[in-house]
């Protein structure tokens, strides 16, 4: 490419700049193609918006990842029958083949001390720890029949997020970004927010695996720059930064003229996007234009909801600005011990903001196109775990992969219903089993993907999020 070629493209590019988001880069590459740089142009913008296999109801995803495995028996799946055998082991026939992480299968039953009541027109039963979520019962599809293959945290989280218990595969958000591209010109397409402590999976929960790193989740941080290196170095003003970027661009264009390598054009674009991110970041974080009612609904300005509420409100603002996939992690729900105390603590932090997110998306007409999912990597046992026999408050529950609960709402999902049923003791599923691969298949369906066809060729074969499994759960769909 000669410099004049590029200048010509640049001037045309200026025209496209005024058009809708995303078009600029595509246009640049289309022009490169037309001007005889077919090969390099094919390598075009990997984040350009793409069409899924069929029109999906959901355009965006907010995944409220409750790391550590929340206790379904104390939140979503009432089991009064457990009260009758409180303190005794479960029937032998039930636990014969069972292997658990810490406790022995014959550990005593712990009936939930929670009070469950029916909510909404749908009459879904939920516990007194989550009154706000319960108030959204008619928008929620509560799945009581989730199950998974792993009963330790990191493998379980990998299975939920990447479809396999092994490290190294792309995660949910990466697949979605790979399949749909990004609508945002100023923000990353896959954003991760966190509250609480760090997670077992760490960065492997939002890795791009063997997909290009362009698709990996960008961590929005809670302190300092929301995106790493977003603010200018100390002493550098906005004008200085702009002048520096202008010079970088001009010298890069000069070098593009000398070498003819279209990769340089791509880098010029990346610098422009970086600068726009620097502008968009502070705007995104600025809640001053949110109404007092909104801030109050989420609980942004009070404890203990503040950190999670801030992230929920950010998630809504990101979806409004075209971010494709927002993963919101809260850790940890791993209540091996002190179940009553620590589960309540988590609920007090997350219940109100999560419910506010649904209500807020709904009142803004965004819920229909946003798929909201709440849940962890597995559930918890009906049996008690005690690590300190001297302290009665110490009681908790072990990991339970055979049956647990999650909820979904919004884009493509039929609210106000319960899918699946567990047995009277909450140990096994007796109706409509939903494996995490089925959940993945269903979520991809909501986004317009045939989950078996969203593939990437690597190491000699096609890989997909649902590995070799997965069925769309039709009952969950609207």
């Amino acid at each position, binding site marked *: 490419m000669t410099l004049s070629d590029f200048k010509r493209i640049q001037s045309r590019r200026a025209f496209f700049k005024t058009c809708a988001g995303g078009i600029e880069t595509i246009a640049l590459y289309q022009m490169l193609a037309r001007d*005889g740089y077919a090969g390099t142009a094919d390598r075009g913008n990997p984040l350009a918006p793409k069409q899924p296999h069929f029109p999906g109801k959901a355009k965006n995803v907010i995944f409220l990842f409750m790391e550590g495995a929340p206790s379904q028996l104390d939140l979503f799946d009432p089991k009064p029958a457990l009260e009758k055998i409180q303190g005794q082991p479960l029937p032998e026939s039930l636990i014969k083949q069972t292997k658990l992480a810490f406790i022995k299968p014959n550990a005593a039953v712990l009936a939930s001390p929670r009070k469950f009541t029916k909510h909404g027109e749908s009459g879904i039963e939920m516990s007194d720890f989550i009154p706000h979520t319960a108030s959204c019962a008619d928008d929620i599809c509560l799945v009581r029949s989730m199950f998974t293959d792993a009963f330790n945290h990191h493998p379980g989280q990998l299975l939920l997020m990447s479809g396999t218990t092994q490290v190294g595969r792309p995660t949910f958000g990466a697949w979605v970004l790979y399949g749909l591209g990004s609508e945002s010109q100023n923000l990353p397409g896959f954003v991760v927010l966190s509250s609480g402590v*760090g997670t077992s999976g*760490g960065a492997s929960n939002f890795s791009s695996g063997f997909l290009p790193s362009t698709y990996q989740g960008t961590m929005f941080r809670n302190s300092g720059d929301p995106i790493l290196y977003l603010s200018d170095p100390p002493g550098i003003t906005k004008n200085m930064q702009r002048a520096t970027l202008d010079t970088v661009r001009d010298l890069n264009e000069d070098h593009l003229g000398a070498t003819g390598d279209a*990769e340089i054009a791509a*880098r010029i674009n990346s610098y422009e996007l970086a600068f726009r991110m620097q502008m968009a970041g502070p705007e995104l974080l600025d809640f001053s234009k949110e109404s007092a009612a909104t801030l109050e609904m989420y609980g942004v300005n009070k404890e203990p909801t503040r950190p999670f509420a801030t992230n929920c409100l950010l998630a809504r603002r990101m979806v409004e600005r075209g971010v494709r996939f927002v993963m919101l992690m809260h850790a940890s729900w791993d209540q091996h011990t002190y179940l009553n105390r620590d589960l309540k603590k988590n609920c007090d932090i997350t219940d109100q903001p999560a419910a506010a997110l649904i209500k807020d998306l709904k009142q803004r007409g965004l819920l229909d196109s946003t798929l909201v999912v709440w849940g962890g990597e597995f559930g918890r046992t009906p049996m008690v775990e005690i690590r300190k026999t001297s302290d009665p408050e110490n009681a908790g529950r072990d990991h339970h992969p055979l049956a647990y609960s999650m909820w979904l709402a919004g884009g493509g999902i039929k609210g106000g219903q319960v899918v699946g049923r567990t047995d009277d003791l909450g140990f096994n599923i007796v109706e409509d089993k939903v494996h995490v691969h089925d959940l993945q298949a269903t979520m991809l369906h909501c986004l317009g993907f045939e989950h078996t066809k969203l593939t990437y060729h690597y190491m000699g074969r096609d890989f997909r999020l649902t590995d070799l499994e997965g069925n769309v759960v039709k009952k969950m769909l609207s």
Partner: protein
Amino acid sequence: MLTAMRFLLLFVLAMSGWAQTVDYSKDIQPIFTKRCAGCHGAAQQMSGLRLDSPSAVIKGSYTGPVVVAGKAADSKLIQRVSSDKKGFAMPPVGAPLTAAEIAALRSWIDAGATVPADSAAREQKSTHWSFQPVKRPSGDSIDFFIRARLAKEGLQPSPEADRRTLIRRVSLDLVGLPPTPREVEEFASDQRPDAYERLVDRLLASQHYGEKWARHWLDLAHYADSDGYEKDQVRPNAWRYRHWVINALNRDMPFDEFTIEQLAGDLLPNATVDQVVATGFLRNTLTNREAGVDRAEDRFEQLINRTNTVSTTWLGLTMGCSQCHNHKFDPITQKDYYSMFAFFERAEERSIEAPLAGESGPYFAALPDYERKRSEILESFNIPPLYAKWQARMREAFAHQGANLEWDFAVTSFRAMFDNADRFLKGGVEKLERHEQDRLLDYFLNNPGPDITNRDKASLEVIKQAHTKMSALSLPPYSLAPVMARNPEAPATHIHIGGDYKNLGVEVKPATPSFLSKEAPENATRLTLAKWIASRDNPLTARVAVNRMWQELFGRGLVVTSEDFGTQGDRPSHPELLDWLASEFMDHGWSMKAIQKEIVMSATYRQSSNIRKDVEARDPENVLLARQSRIRLPAELVRDEALAASGLLNPAIGGRSIRPFQPAGVAELGYGHSVKWKESEGADRYRRGLYIHYQRTTPYPFLSNFDGPESNVTCSRRRRSDTPLQSLNLLNDPVFFEAAQGLAARVDKDVQGGFSDKIDYVFELVLGRKPKTSERERLAKYFDEQGAGKAAWVGVSRVLLNLDEFVTRE
């Protein structure tokens, strides 16, 4: 029709007890061929079962025989074909066998299941290109093969790159650091005909060579400084392996030796400590210390990882597919896979004492005093009885699991956190090495067990006091190294059906892959495997190795899928050249430096990388190499180059990992806020990128931004992405801002002249060349805008460190 009649007849006969007339060839094999051989035949052998040859039928599947002579009802074959249970019945899809077919099989088995001898051996070796022996083609140079192909396509090669481009290119490629302005000038004005060769020789002899090429090898080994998974504990001695790689490469250790030592250095006769440390290659697998994890399962995962890493690294094969089933595309059976796996099953992880130079003297001088003081403290607090009781309780709880919940948990945690815990639990403290015994005592002092922690405040207090006093004692360092050792007590290896660690099939012995090698000797060890991998008999090793070197020097391999030389991988663009290079490599004693020199001396390598319109449309991926390629530098090199240009670089070679500045909030993402990032002090912060501490769950963000691999599985080729996060990183990261300030200061100090001299110098420092007029004018404009002072030079430096050319090897 006739067959149907015959079956009907057999059916009747069978019913009436006349079974003798069944003939294998006429009656049985046709059933197998028609109904079973699709999945249990030559193309694939599901569950290891093959029903297309008489002997294979008798041999059975991975779970054992399927035919019990004389007992049809006990034969799995009959049970499966006569079942109607979904998931168990065979065939799994399509019509079930007819009653007559089943009757024929029954009769044949009840009559003794006699079979004829196999017809002539039908084992056919694969014809896939990479499994054929390497043959040296006629031709005498890289350029011969490349130019022959270009001529065929009617293309001309590009002219040689100018001298300044060339020295920057070959310096970045061989040592990973840019040339200094003086080196550039010297080379540019060196009129001797062998000036370039002298340059290449100088670079190959540099100690930085080992650092540059170690990084590529560490990607394959998936080196990291932590365990991975939830706990992600730091591995303080992991660096010993990296150190070994750097030294081996600097010495140009022949690749066959390099291979053997990493896979089985511990098994070499009279192995040196260094040779044992080489087996650290196999210690880069993850360790899951989540307390609830089944130890056997974690070990299984590690063995899978080792098998896959070794096969990709040396054989360029994606053997991982065969963990669960026979490879769908390559002739790798599940048996091959677990026969390879068996080599690693017979090894265990060890930590050995591997003192560094100068450590032994001071350590042994101080040791007696240290041990004496430790004993004194223990005695003074009366710890030994408590410690003895704890040991007894732990071993008892291990032997009788389920007897006591609290102690069960104590044992589970101990087994997760304490390496080689089972040796103690099974055999007592005597089974531990001395340094492990010290560690066991430390473990006890930190975790004195539930009886004391939950109920005995007085003892707990005493232990705390003793621990505090003990912690104040110190001993001069005496380094350990993570290695592999033979495990004489290793269990037998079985095929794992469906890749499930609990689901065992038939037993297998350690053996090299059957489709590539002759029968393995009896009692093959890791050393047998290592020697076979590094032998000329193996058609893959040399090809895979030279292809990777080519990949790093041209941006793509002759085989693009450098991790996959199997049937699903790409075919070589220049098959003869690949074989010629592989032959050269082996004929020159497997010298890596020799083959790299051969490549960088070629005219093909020295070409300009500028895009040519005439070539671009026809060969956009630059497969034919009518030019060199422009390559975005690997993550570590971007940082190294910035540090080198600014004069901040600390060029010390080898040693421990370092922690440069990392923004707050990154390490905190680790599990339960357990990861700590304590920034290195002084010049350590400015060491090269390959020394940056790699914490698997919270990797250093700069490395991830620039496509550094995640280090969980082997990585044979890095991506080269281009993202806005990279731009932000180079623009605003304090590390790069500091480099810009350093660069500005260096220009100010080194050049007395005016703007023009200074701009020349800073350009040479960063890009290895002088600015063009247009560049000079643009920067002058910027410089004036920024006030033309010291701050403006920082600005100019930032501009240069953000140019595409800066992050690119031209």
